[in-house]
């Protein structure tokens, strides 16, 4: 069934499908000169952002593959990762071993949380996104219960540098001096004065390869099937619920690792806040890369990181030079991050509707042809 569209309609459709990235290109095109940053500075910043964030964003891909939309529940993974980091910095494990150990600790926690999250999402079918979003908030409460009241009281944490003076609960900020940039500096080379953390990028590459490989596996195929039509998949004997849960688990675990890499680059853990906004920013970046709620690939991830963070870096400076208030730029980028998510969610829903009306349009066309 092909409804003949005019050239302009086609063009508009293409524009519509890539609206968000185009929008961002425009913003950056205006912003860069305004900010007055040097190309070199921007380049090095971008490299840092890529090595810092892309792992987190990649962790969003698999649930999308399984048709569960954007997994705002990745916050759960982030929490697991943070718990791992808190523990190792209490034990005083440093450097690469520290990072790996943190990952090992985070894994079982992520798996459990992910499993639970997946179960809930299966119950709330059709509104996965908002549910996973609320799950994030809910778990944040539990996380605080554990970290703010459990640690030092129930879970043994001894280091005074971590504990609040009252003897239990972790401080607002934990200094991760032990593992700070441990991975980044492992293999740091300079290209035209731009420092490039090869080791981190290598890890990310491996992950991307894994994703590509994963799509080839039976599990990947099943997820694609489930993502397209649960009923058909079920009829074919695929364990739909189980598959969906697995996709969330994988995503959560990766989110945990991503969070650890992210924090080893930052160097300080914002105990009660780091994880909260990470989900939002990752999702925004992915969408900026041209992904939609139902379709996303690795290209989107990297395009997204570059465009989104370019905007992020330049906006305060641009704001300052424009109106003389850096704060304005900061608000602006928050606005943009949320705006982007809003826009792409709306576009997604609208497009879904449009495709449903496709048949009707065609029938109408036939009738016109007849008369």
């Amino acid at each position, binding site marked *: 069934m092909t409804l003949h569209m005019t050239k302009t309609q086609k063009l508009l459709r293409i524009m519509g499908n890539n609206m968000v990235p185009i929008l961002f290109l425009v913003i950056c095109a205006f912003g860069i000169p305004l900010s007055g940053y040097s190309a070199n500075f921007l380049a090095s910043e971008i490299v840092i952002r890529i090595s810092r964030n892309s792992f987190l964003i990649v962790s969003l891909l698999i649930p999308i593959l399984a048709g569960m939309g954007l997994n705002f529940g990745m916050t759960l993974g982030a929490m697991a990762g943070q718990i791992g980091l808190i523990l190792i910095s209490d034990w005083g494990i440093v450097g690469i071993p520290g990072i790996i150990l943190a990952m090992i600790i985070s894994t079982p926690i992520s798996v459990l949380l992910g499993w639970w999250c997946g179960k809930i999402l299966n119950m709330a079918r059709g509104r996965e996104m908002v549910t996973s979003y609320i799950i994030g908030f809910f778990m944040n409460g539990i996380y605080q219960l554990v970290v703010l009241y459990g640690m030092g009281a129930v879970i043994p944490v001894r280091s005074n540098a971590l504990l609040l003076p009252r003897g239990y609960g972790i401080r607002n900020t934990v200094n991760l001096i032990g593992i700070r940039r441990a991975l980044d500096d492992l293999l740091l080379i300079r290209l035209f004065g731009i420092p490039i953390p090869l080791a981190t990028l290598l890890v990310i590459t491996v992950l991307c390869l894994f994703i590509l490989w994963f799509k080839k596996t*039976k*599990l990947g*195929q099943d997820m694609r099937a489930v993502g397209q039509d649960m009923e058909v998949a079920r009829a074919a004997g695929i364990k739909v619920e189980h598959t969906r849960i697995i996709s969330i688990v994988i995503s959560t675990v990766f989110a945990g690792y991503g969070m650890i890499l992210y924090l080893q680059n930052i160097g300080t853990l914002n105990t009660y806040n780091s994880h909260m906004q990470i989900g939002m920013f990752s999702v925004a970046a992915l969408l900026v890369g041209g992904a939609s709620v139902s379709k996303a690939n690795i290209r989107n991830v990297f395009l997204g990181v570059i465009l989104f963070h370019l905007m992020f870096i330049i906006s305060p400076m641009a704001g300052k030079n424009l109106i003389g208030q850096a704060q304005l730029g900061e608000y602006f980028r928050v606005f943009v991050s949320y705006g982007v998510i809003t826009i792409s969610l709306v576009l997604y829903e609208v497009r879904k509707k449009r495709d449903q009306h496709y048949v009707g349009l065609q029938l109408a066309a036939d009738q016109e042809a007849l008369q």
Partner: protein
Amino acid sequence: MGLLGENGAGKSTLMKILFGMDEIHQTGGYGGDIIINGEKVQFSSPIDALAKGIGMVHQEFSLLPDFTATENILLNREPLKYTVFSELFGERLNILDREKMDQIAERAIGRLKVPLDKDMMVSQMPVGHKQFTEIARELSKEATDVVEGIKLLVLDEPTAVLSEQEADSLLKAMRLLSESGISIIFISHRLQEIIDVCNTIMVMRDGQIIKTVPSQGVVIADIARWMVGRDVGSSKREARGFDYENTPVLLSLQNLWVDMPGEVVRDVSLDVHKGEILGIGGMAGQGKLGIPNGAMGLFPAGGKVIFEGKEIALNNPRHFLDAGMAFVSEDRRGVGLLLDESLEWNISFTAMQIQEKYLKRYLGGLLKWRDQAAIEEETESYVKQLEIRCTSTKQKAKELSGGNQQKVCLAKAFAVGPKLLFVSEPTRGIDIGAKSLVLKALRKYNEENGTTIVMISSELEELRAICDRVAIISDGKVFGILPATTDSAEFGLLMIGQKSQVLEGGSV
């Protein structure tokens, strides 16, 4: 082997039994034996039916749009290449063996001898190719140690959605298969096909096998009679003379098209005379349901609807209702009722919204207050009139039985006091008692208030019982209009898309 019969004759039920689908087990199971190759079998689920080498292609496709033909054919049965991860995470982490998949798909398609591109996305396929993909999937189920290769293939109305030439190539493919030793049960409404392709023909009606004959020398007329049942002229009903010359045309549909999924109306032109009861019949999926839904504006529609001489704008129920028409939908739970609300609401709502009944006005009509008393009164009267069985008028609609729900829907329509009433499948899924009551109510309403009624039903006999004329819809077009008194065999012919000589004489 060709299997045919009217809708609800029990064809699909039989097939479901054969497949041991769970709805059979839920709804009281079945008696008798199924014997395959001499051995008695008892399937508890479709899976072990498949294991016995029985494949079925359902009417509605179960294909994934963004998968290629190959991927769909081998869905969840993909051959795998070993990877080391599978030891750790189970074999679902093995890689798909694309070459092997292609081979199997090619072989399966090859057996059909149809031009089906195995790498084409299903979403881009013409409907015929989708059909072939489905069949190919069944064929690709080859003998393994657990599963026997496909031996018996059931095709449930495969040609209903196909164009002529597509159908032809499908029939060819079927012959090939049967020659290659696969037995096929072929369910269809297109009798000619059945006669052409089948060796044996089995006709069902009211859950019984009426006839099982070899296809040689069978003529369509016979089959039609077997299907519809009653022999020529056996129908007995008080035909009320209705003279069309002196009664004005109340509603006329002109080149109406409706995009109602599964019930597409292509080009319908109809005149409805004042005070008559017009029946609209036809096979499922031919578009008869689309007509009222389109006219009402529940589905995107085009063409002309002229009521009492003035044209009614389409695609907005408001105009339809304001003009003084009402519609009792076939989809009771979806469209007909507010399941979570009381009977009062269900019955009074439409009238309240359209004609501002049951409202108290304050501040010079600025504030329109719901008049509970009036609503209860009205509801009570309808409950009595239609013998709706309910604990109280406050009862929620979802707690009623199907029959009573249908009555509520009628009451809702009556409350509007329409000049013309569309009633769609009024007796679907309700017990005999309720059936006759509903039909009586309709007839009574028509005779007392002179309301014109257009009744859509797939049960020919009930149409013939209460209508003055019956129009048969086929392939989204009016295929013929006959007085209800006409012999049912004629209708049978019309339904299955056969013009007959009598038609010219009979049509008004």
